[in-house]
């Protein structure tokens, strides 16, 4: 008994050490980013380079600069608007589709499901060129509404897939009961299915929010005006100046962009795990 306990403890300690070590090394880049954002831009070419700046050299001037730019708030609001609109509309559309696919046996089900799987295999970034032609025809270039429909289109397949699984788990008897009570499809959807599937809808929405918040290639293609930019383009734009690369500003802006994301993640991390694992373990 004693030797079993000792090996167990040893292996546990080993695990903890390995995990701790791994986690620290893993987060080094992020820590470096934060430490650089707290350094004055002039100190960037100091030699030898330091991981942490000297205590006296710590400064918030980069953050002050970024926060003093009115464009930053505009870009932030643009990102918020695009992301929120995307998740609301995507949640509505994909839960509706998941409801029908999961609960009703229509002949078109297989076809629609096939389309969904197909769209999941070919991500939106591959299709940038045809999408751009479409956006041009619809006159959506250089508008925030040139982003939203496409983001929704990109996330619907995966969201529908996830929510469908949940919908299928709703016991048929509950629905039978409501049919008998004389409810119509819409009532069943909104009053029964949606509330029961809300964990799935929530976790899917969180994923979609992150997708829309950090998306770069499509936003960069469609948006021209500085006033309509979303945060990722603003950060990349800051970086694009060849003669002076002001890493301090770039990273200060990056940290400010990451704060909402990390907050949401930490608060809702349960939903994340649920969402991810629901799809993968079944598969």
């Amino acid at each position, binding site marked *: 008994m004693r030797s079993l306990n000792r090996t167990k403890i040893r292996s546990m300690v080993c695990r903890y050490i390995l995990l701790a070590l791994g986690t620290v090394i893993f987060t080094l880049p992020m820590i470096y980013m934060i430490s650089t954002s707290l350094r004055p831009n002039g100190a960037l*070419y100091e*030699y030898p380079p330091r991981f942490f700046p000297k205590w006296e050299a710590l400064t918030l001037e980069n953050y002050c600069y970024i926060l003093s730019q009115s464009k930053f708030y505009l870009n932030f609001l643009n990102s918020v*608007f695009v992301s929120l*609109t995307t998740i*609301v*509309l995507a949640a509505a559309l994909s839960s509706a589709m998941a409801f029908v696919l999961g609960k009703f046996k229509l002949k078109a089900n297989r076809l629609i499901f096939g389309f969904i799987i197909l769209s999941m295999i070919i991500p939106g970034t591959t299709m940038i060129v045809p999408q*751009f032609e479409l*956006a*041009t025809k619809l006159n959506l*270039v*250089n*508008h*925030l*509404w040139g982003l939203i429909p496409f983001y929704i289109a990109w996330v619907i397949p995966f969201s529908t897939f996830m929510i469908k699984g949940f919908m299928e788990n709703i016991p048929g008897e509950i629905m039978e009961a409501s049919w008998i009570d004389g409810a119509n499809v819409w*009532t069943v959807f*909104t*009053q029964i299915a949606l509330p029961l599937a809300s964990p799935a809808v929530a976790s899917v929405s969180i994923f979609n929010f992150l997708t829309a918040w950090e998306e770069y290639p499509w936003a960069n*293609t469609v948006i*021209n*005006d*500085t*006033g309509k930019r979303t945060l990722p383009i603003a950060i990349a*734009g*800051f970086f*694009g*100046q*060849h*003669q*002076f*690369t*002001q890493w301090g500003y770039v990273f200060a802006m990056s940290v400010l962009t990451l704060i909402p994301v990390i907050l949401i993640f930490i608060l809702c991390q349960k939903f994340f795990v649920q969402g991810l694992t629901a799809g993968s373990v079944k598969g």
Partner: protein
Amino acid sequence: MCTRTKLLAALLACLMFLTVGSAFAEGETVTINFWHHYSAQSAENETLMNVLIPAFEAENPGIKVNAVSHEWAELHDKVLVSAKSEALPDVARCDIAWLPEFQKMGILVALDEEMPDFSEVSGKLLESAMSTSIIGGHNYALALNTNSKIVFYNKAMLEAADVRIPATMDEWIEAVRKLSGENANGQQVWGWNEPALAGWNICPFIWSFGGSLTNDEQTEATGYINGPAAVKAVETFAELVKAGGITGFNSGDIPMTDGFGTGRYAMMLEGPWKSAELAGAYPDVAYGTAPIPAGEGGSISVLGGEDIAMFNSANKEAAWKFMQFMTDEFAETEMAKCGQIPVNKAALESETVKNADYAPFIEAIQTAKARPTVAAWSEMDNDLTVAMTAVVTGEKTAQEAMDELASKWDELLK
């Protein structure tokens, strides 16, 4: 629950309506879109946003200017893409090298035809600068500024290495070698910085060595870009890179101004805007300027400049007013303070310009050559960069790379 859903739907509809509405709303004020490539943190952009545009809007109530800053290469690409998606701005500040390409695409307005007071407005500007806007006998832009590049050198570094300012290409080669090596901290230093391997960077060397890019009619490249003088220029440049004398065009290199300001690059070839930049970011660096060293072909730098052009989807009246404002004495003099050499005749006579000491640049402009004024130049430029990269990394010899380049260019020049 049902009412809640209805409320949500109504809210969403309102939201959509508001934003769509605001996106497409047209008030009584006309807004013109002006695209430029003054870098976002530069003095030029400050002047544009805080001095020029407010002054223009005050003089012209009813016109608002929406200025968008793009990085140089991106501006070119955005114009290309926007032409296809019909999302072009009204006015743009274009590199003179792009005008033939844009004109061929049919997106530029022929100002001499469409604007009744064109000759009056263009008469205020230098003829030599206006010549950059003439394509096929018509003017497609107003000249905005002109420039050329001269050598900037770090006085302390040259003194320390006991190197004189190079006057000939041979002296230059020696100087670059002597100035490279290590500094007191053990960090590597380079004698020369070249931020890219495009035409803007390599042409001065090719021309000064006595070579040329194409024939005079700009229809053939074989025998010119792969001729002995041009190949010698490319070879010399690549050898210096391999010897650790030149750098700056790699992604991981220290940016040009930062490197010059912190004493890592001894010399560079730059334009008048660099003085303003250095004064702002590294005011303590003691530097001097000199013309580009003379080779077999003389001391020939590259002619640069920007013109302001109008696109045919523009609000022509408002755009023309803005273009006149930007090329008028006030705007040109203000920009002169940031290192933009004016083309407005009156501005050139002003105290500001006289005090700014543009003499060395203006001298270089007299002998500078322009890059080929053909519609295919952007693609030719890209091919040149690819060819130079191959030579500099040792993948191909200079002669091989230039021969290949010549046949590619022949195709494009047809």
